């Protein structure tokens, strides 16, 4: 979609929009190259700013195709040194929150399995009479389950895993 920005905005307003926008924004200069991207752009697209700067508009659009960007708009600006702005976002925040909620629910369920074994074996050891051999066997299984749980926590609750 291409629209025309009718009136020029005061510089402070543009600066605030640039810095605090919820959208990733890329600026195209009069030569048709990417000349700037705002702080949210890298988070929004996963693209490295250094790799994007200086790309032609066509190459920039190609690069966007490989990103999770769902919604991208182009605005003709026509002010000094700037011909257009692209603004984009990956997904709505509610969708993102839902994805995280589903992920956390799955992790909670995965953690409940070894936790159930840990709880169960501990309760059996505390409340039932077993011979020494059985007690050692149950304690060993208990330790195995603690290790499984520890590995799950390390794998599933890593920030990088959560953000995938």
């Amino acid at each position, binding site marked *: 979609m291409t629209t025309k920005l009718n009136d020029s905005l005061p510089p402070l307003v543009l600066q605030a929009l640039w810095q605090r926008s919820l959208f990733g924004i890329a600026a195209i200069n009069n030569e048709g190259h990417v000349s700037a991207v705002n702080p949210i752009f890298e988070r929004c697209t996963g693209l490295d700013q250094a790799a994007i700067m200086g790309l032609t508009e066509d190459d920039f659009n190609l690069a966007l195709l490989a990103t999770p960007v769902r919604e991208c708009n182009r605005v003709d600006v026509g002010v000094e040194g700037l011909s257009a702005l692209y603004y984009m976002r990956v997904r709505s925040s509610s969708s993102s929150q839902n994805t995280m909620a589903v992920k956390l629910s799955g992790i909670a*369920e995965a953690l409940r*399995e070894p936790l*159930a074994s840990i*709880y169960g074996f501990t*309760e059996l050891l505390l409340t039932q009479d077993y011979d020494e051999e059985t007690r050692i066997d149950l304690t060993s299984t208990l330790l195995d389950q603690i290790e499984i749980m520890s590995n799950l926590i390390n794998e599933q609750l890593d920030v990088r895993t959560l953000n995938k």
Partner: protein
Amino acid sequence: MKNVLIVDDQASIRQIVRLILRKDFALAEAEDAVSALEQIKLLKPDAMVLDVMMPGEMDGYQLCEKIKQDPALADIYIVLLTACGQVADQEKGLALGANAYFVKPFSPVEVSRHLIHALQVK
């Protein structure tokens, strides 16, 4: 002695349930819903301790529904044992005909007491 079939893909959970129930019940075990169904037809257990999330063609909910819809098997007392802790999961299990629902982590002693009471053992 009443028969209880333990169905869970996790060997450690089957072991815990087996250890707590073995004094009071005759036990059989299955590690997935399909093999459980075969055993049910052979053994006609009085009760089942049934996991919800299991790999394979059928999960615990589906097996529970199948049993409760079969007039020959509907009397089997089903205790769902599951890692699904949401209220909606519990409501779904009970709506499908399960008689009781324990969320993991669970107390084996409580499960045992529940079954002893429900099956009027002792």
